[in-house]
């Protein structure tokens, strides 16, 4: 290990996250590779190592001969300070080599509040922030992840944006680069060719013009770049890469367990949910394959916990046989199985009993999202009060005594009546417990949490205004006044980060200046309360002559050119608009298994047919 690094590590918190060396970390011979890929996760090691996408792409890239993928995470403040004062540039964990010498620097961006960390990492690597100031072929800075469905705020800093699932397109991009490197292409020539690969968006090949009112006038592609870039997907999940053999951190991380991915996409179509749209169409893995992969992953890692992952696990058609198949192996070996993301409408007591056999009963969590049936219909969250109360009744009869309920405030069409519906629903859960609990002496804990709705791109609510922070807090106060039951605890999420998230998630390219200004004034780790300061951002917006409310709190017109109009997830914009109108009519849209409503994502599948 580098002696300078050893000296630094002696004085920072949790040094284990800065050294690599974990079981299954991939170390290749520098002389045997011609392409080095630094996979950067712009958050801490503990968060980044909990990300399944990182583990998949790390495995996929390292399976390529001649290519070495390594990991980079954002150093915490004490480490960053020590690195800067000792002059130690950002390095990759596997080799310890400086990131600036890599061929690719790839960022995984799942949330907008990580943007400042991207700038911070580029700076720590010793690279110019703006793509235009990095004229050479090496390094190429690429970004992917869910936040990239509106990549515009970060666009001037990256060379390429990879849209959708990266298993195939990353390999194609790397192969093109190796050819370019071998043949000595210029960066411009490489980017022109990269823009021809489906799923790769090259921001520098698009000119954006604005109206005087700040809305986008036109987005014009240049040099043969496509007018619309459509995301990539893995069409057959049974054939896709699963990281059964994956890094096992030697220090504790947030998700320290086997993550078994049941399916991608979601049949439900909740209108507020970006994931429900951008991961379309739904594609599952076969039950037998999952059992095999789950067992392999446990055996290779030594993990004693497994989580079944998906956007809505109770919608997996073979959930019971899958759990049976896994439990048959897990139970005698004392491996525990966790099943989050269950819906309140098809909660199965039998299943819960099975999963928790012998263990302590953990709390139950449901997300009705809205307090009234009218609003739940408007957002297409097809959960009825009867469903929820019936599930609670089953749980209370089975001895559970703790329920968490998650809601959003500020959803489109929301009235004060809907807000008070949350208190009403919580009370009904309480009375359900009073009536059906098998052990009332233990009491009941009902926790109600609200967050501030953030309208996201590529959803039917992408045109909506977010509630102002004042309006959200007014609703919080209203709700608090109506939650007087001692068994009910009410927590509300602070609206400041939601406001910033709303401004960034539907932003245009002009926000790059705001990002850079905020970063220069100290913004980083914005998703961490230790670091987040809204004032830094308000100052940055003001310094750039922009108004965050223009992005967060303004309703867009049907004909407005949206800043992300060159990006497609396969779902037609006309479909989103129709869904928006259906929301305002308070009508629901059936899920994909009941009836195909023609969103357009089927075109991404082979033969143009979804296999739901």
């Amino acid at each position, binding site marked *: 290990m580098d002696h300078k690094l050893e000296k630094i590590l002696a004085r920072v918190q949790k040094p*284990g996250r*800065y050294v690599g060396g974990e*079981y299954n970390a991939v170390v290749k011979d520098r002389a045997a590779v011609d392409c080095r890929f630094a996979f950067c996760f712009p958050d801490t090691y503990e968060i980044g190592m909990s990300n399944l996408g990182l583990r998949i792409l790390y495995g996929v890239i390292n399976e390529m001969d001649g290519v070495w993928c390594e990991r980079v995470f954002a150093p915490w403040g004490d480490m960053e300070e020590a690195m800067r004062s000792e002059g130690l540039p950002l390095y990759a964990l596997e080799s310890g080599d400086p990131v600036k010498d890599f061929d690719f620097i790839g960022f995984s961006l799942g949330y907008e509040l990580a943007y400042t960390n991207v700038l911070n990492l580029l700076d720590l690597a010793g690279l110019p922030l703006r793509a235009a100031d990095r004229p050479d072929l090496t390094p190429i800075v690429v970004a992917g992840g869910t936040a990239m469905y509106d990549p515009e705020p970060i666009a001037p800093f990256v060379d390429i944006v990879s849209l959708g699932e990266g298993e195939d397109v990353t390999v194609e991009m790397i192969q093109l680069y190796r050819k370019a490197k071998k043949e000595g292409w210029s960066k411009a020539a490489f980017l022109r060719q990269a823009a021809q690969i489906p799923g790769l968006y090259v921001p520098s090949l698009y000119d954006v013009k604005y109206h005087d009112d700040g809305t986008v006038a036109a987005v014009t592609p240049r040099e043969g770049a496509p007018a619309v870039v459509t995301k990539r997907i893995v069409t057959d999940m049974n054939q896709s890469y699963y990281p059964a053999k994956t890094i*096992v951190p*030697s*220090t*504790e991380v947030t998700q320290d367990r086997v993550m078994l991915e049941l399916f991608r996409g979601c049949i439900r179509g909740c209108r507020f949910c970006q994931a429900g749209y951008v991961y379309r169409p739904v594609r599952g893995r076969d039950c037998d394959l999952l059992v095999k992969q789950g067992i392999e992953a446990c055996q290779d*890692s030594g993990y*004693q916990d497994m989580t079944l992952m998906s956007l809505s696990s109770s919608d997996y058609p073979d959930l019971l046989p899958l759990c049976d198949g896994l439990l048959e192996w897990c139970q005698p070996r004392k491996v525990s199985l966790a099943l989050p993301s269950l819906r309140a409408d098809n909660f199965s007591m039998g299943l819960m009993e099975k999963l928790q056999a012998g263990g302590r009963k953990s709390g139950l969590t449901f997300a009705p999202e809205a307090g009234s049936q009218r609003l739940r219909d408007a957002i297409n969250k097809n959960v009825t009060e009867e469903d929820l109360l019936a599930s609670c009744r089953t749980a209370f009869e089975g001895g559970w005594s703790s329920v968490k309920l998650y809601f959003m405030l500020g959803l489109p069409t929301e009235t004060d009546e809907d807000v008070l519906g949350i208190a009403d629903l919580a009370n009904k859960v309480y009375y359900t417990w009073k009536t059906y609990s098998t052990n009332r002496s233990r009491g009941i804990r009902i926790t109600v949490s609200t967050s501030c709705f953030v309208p996201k791109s590529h959803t039917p609510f992408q045109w909506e205004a977010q509630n102002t922070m004042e309006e959200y807090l007014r609703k919080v106060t209203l709700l608090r006044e109506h939650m007087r039951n001692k068994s009910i605890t009410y927590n509300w999420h602070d609206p400041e980060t939601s406001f910033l998230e709303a401004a960034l998630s539907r932003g245009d390219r002009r926000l790059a200046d705001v990002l850079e200004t905020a970063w220069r004034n100290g913004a980083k780790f914005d998703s961490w309360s230790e670091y987040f300061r809204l004032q830094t951002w308000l100052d940055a917006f003001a310094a750039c002559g922009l108004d965050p409310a223009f992005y967060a709190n303004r309703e867009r017109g049907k004909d407005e050119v949206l800043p992300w109009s060159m990006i497609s997830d396969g779902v037609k914009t006309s479909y989103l608009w129709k869904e928006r109108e259906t929301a305002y009519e308070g009508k629901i849209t059936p899920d994909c298994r009941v009836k195909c409503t023609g969103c357009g994502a089927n075109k991404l599948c082979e033969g143009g047919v979804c296999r739901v």
Partner: protein
Amino acid sequence: MSDQRILFRKTGTAKYISHLDLMHTMERAFLRAGISIRHTQGYHPHPYVSIPLPLPLGFSSDCEILEFGLVEGSTIETLPAQMNRALPSGIEVLDCYDGGLAFKKLTFVRYDITLEFETEQAEEAAADFKALMGRESFVVQKRSKKAKSGFTEVDIIPLVEAVEEVRSDGVFLYLTLLLKAQNPGLNPDVLLQGFRSEYPGLNVIYTACHRREILDDNKAIYR
């Protein structure tokens, strides 16, 4: 049937695995290696792994011991190789054996300590260190979870069994010390902090502590 022990080395990147994380790492390594080990009895059974003398974070060691109970999937002869394929970089199992001396017999630890100075102060520091060790008593403040003030006083001198080597070389000072292991033991960091505050003119920029050997009450190798 008696329990088993492994003797292992912890160096390189593994220095930064804390005691608690090391226990988890070992439990997982046993599972990865296909070795089943004894679980504790009781309401929440868990795999039994026990380390008699936890190694402070950042220290390296050639002589760590972990006790466990081998149930099946290996033998004491094949276990080291099996485990070494399942362990992270920097942890290496050197030996596996039945039984072993009682934990309370672990009495002394031989540490190799390196101090690095900003300038060529090692020679001066060597003299200072010897002088300090020659005192009758040297009381330092030590952080304590039990004491109300958060600190407790400890006399270092009786806890240093022997100063086996003091060698200076430019900016480096090398010490080999035999320290009491437990009841009470002495963490060399406490000694070094006391030394540094006693001689504030010495500008130490880095220290490294390495456990070379552990000994029983007769100063024979402890296993």
